[in-house]
């Protein structure tokens, strides 16, 4: 009877021992990977932090207008009120009117 008890207890101990070591190792691995991931996150966060700053700098209106001048583009001008179209239909309607007027003008000049 006592032998069986001893065997059972040794068996349990060995299982517990192996579980303990597994858990311990797993914990260490997890800790390590958490630390590594954390470091990676920190590096990425720092990159993002500085990249955002760069983005806002290079997309700032002052920087863009400087670049436009350097590249000798025509300066951006405000759109005339009469040239603002709010939909494609508005645009086509006004274009139709313009072409009709042009055709009429051409006919008149031909008659003359």
């Amino acid at each position: 009877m006592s032998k069986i008890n001893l065997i059972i207890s040794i068996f349990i101990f060995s299982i517990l021992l192996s579980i303990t070591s597994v858990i311990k190792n797993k914990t260490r691995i997890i800790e390590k990977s958490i630390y590594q991931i954390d470091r990676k996150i920190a590096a990425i966060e720092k990159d993002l932090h500085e990249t955002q700053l760069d983005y806002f700098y290079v997309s700032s209106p002052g920087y863009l207008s400087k670049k436009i001048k350097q590249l000798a583009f025509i300066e951006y001008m405000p759109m005339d009120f009469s040239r603002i179209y709010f939909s494609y239909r508005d645009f086509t309607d006004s274009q139709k009117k313009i072409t009709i007027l042009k055709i009429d003008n051409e006919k008149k000049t031909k008659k003359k």
Partner: protein
Amino acid sequence: MKRKRKKNKDFNINQKSFYFEDYLETNQKNKKVKNSNISQDRVYLLFFLFFSLITIFSIKIIFVSLKNLEIYNKKNNSSHFIALRRDIIDRNGILISRNVKSFHAAIKPNLIKNKENFLIKIRLNFPDLSIKQVEQKLDKGKYFYLKKRLDQNDKEKLWSLGEKGIIFEPFQSRIYTHANLYGHILGQVDYDNYGISGVEKYFDKELKDKKLLNNPLQLTLDTNIQHIIDDELNRALETFNASGGGALLMDAKNGEVLSLVSLPNFNINTRANIKDKNYINKITKGVYELGSIFKTFTIALAIEKNLVSPDTIIKNIPRKIKCSVHEISDIKKFPKDLSVEDILIRSSNIGILMLAKKIGEKDYKSFIQETNLLNTPELELEELGTPFISGQTQSFEWNKCKLETISYGHGIAVTPLQATATYAALANGGNVIKPTIIKKEKYQDNKKIISSKTSKKINAILRKVVTEKEGTASLANIYGYDVGGKTGTSQKYGNENENLNTFISVFPSQDPKYVLLVMLENPQVATDLIYNYRGMQIKGTRNEAGWNSVYVAGKIIKKIGPILAIKNKEFYNKHVAKKLN
């Protein structure tokens, strides 16, 4: 026998029956039991040990998984960058200011073996540095800074020198993405990240609040609009050869400042120590006699007090009026009889003076008091000017002729910020507004200075100043934006040879949403400029506000109008959709 009894614990005197057992066998059994008890205790002990170990590791795993943030707190990890100050963003979320990791270059003289060689290298790479000073510091043998706030190039240069004695000392540097654009608003921080001017100083505590580090401080300013106004104003300084200028765009309903430009400005990233007075924030700190801008206040008060209506004819307006030793007159010859609105449209000094006399000193004083024109303005900046009345020690002890001169904007000096805020109040239905540069969820309901009826009448007159033939602000009549406003040409306080030309516009004038102030210091006649004046192309020959400040305001409104219209549905529907229909 006694000994035996003592030894045998199971012996009982009263026992009546006996049985016999093998002593050896019993003794062996007892021994075994005893031995097994000892081994059981050990088993339990071991079991307990293993169990407690497992429990400890399990708890640790749970702790790691659940309390992850606390164990791997960014503070404990040196690779994490934690900013010492919060970001500052504009109303659209565009980044304006941020802390980044930067380096100072310091020298440990005892680690430098060949000093001569080191000095030659420094001279070659950094010709701007004073080599004598570096040499003296090296000789002293104490730790010193060679160069503060290194940029990437400088850091690489120093790195390539391969000197052990060069220490790269990390610190946090405040970077302003728009350099000059917000120079007068943001202010600066020192090397220890303490705000020393502007928003950085005013909100120093809030910007350093560790609980709010991830929430940027949002301003009411709009970077795109700020750039457009800054650009136009810079061009105006060149065109009119002006010594300085300023512009302020404010939401007429809630006092939000969308743009605040003061020229000349400076690059806040360079940390220059500027002592020139011309570099002050002219909008909030500068105190000026704004001239005819004040005439609108006089007319608004006269209408509010039911003394006159816009159509009331003021008869027999004299050419000149003598007040004490002063002689007050108009620049031009105006008809003798003028309606109240004509007085403002033509900007008649004498006409306004006659209206002020009708109002009386007592009512005029209380009106000025209600508008807060003589108090130091309230804005979230450290740089604020205090208004004053010339020749007076106390603001409300007016001597002879003060009412007369103040009625047309002379003898009283206020900040452009206050004048714009008062125009906003007159245009928005009479509600006094508190200018702000910080985005808020709710804005306080303030007291009224005039009724909404009077406000509508004033808006109509201001519109006529721009549209009427006799008006002084025709160049600001930008199609689609319904601009109204009033010009002011005055001599600079303390320097009568210099002009100060101002134009305050409100738009759209039917229900004003925005107030724009444009101010130019000592502008000259732009002889090369060709104006598009009421359909005619004319050359510049004049120097009043109507020919420079108004011209600049018109150009600004033409550019910012579409941006404001896009962002404001009501404005968009009313003034843009109309064009399509």
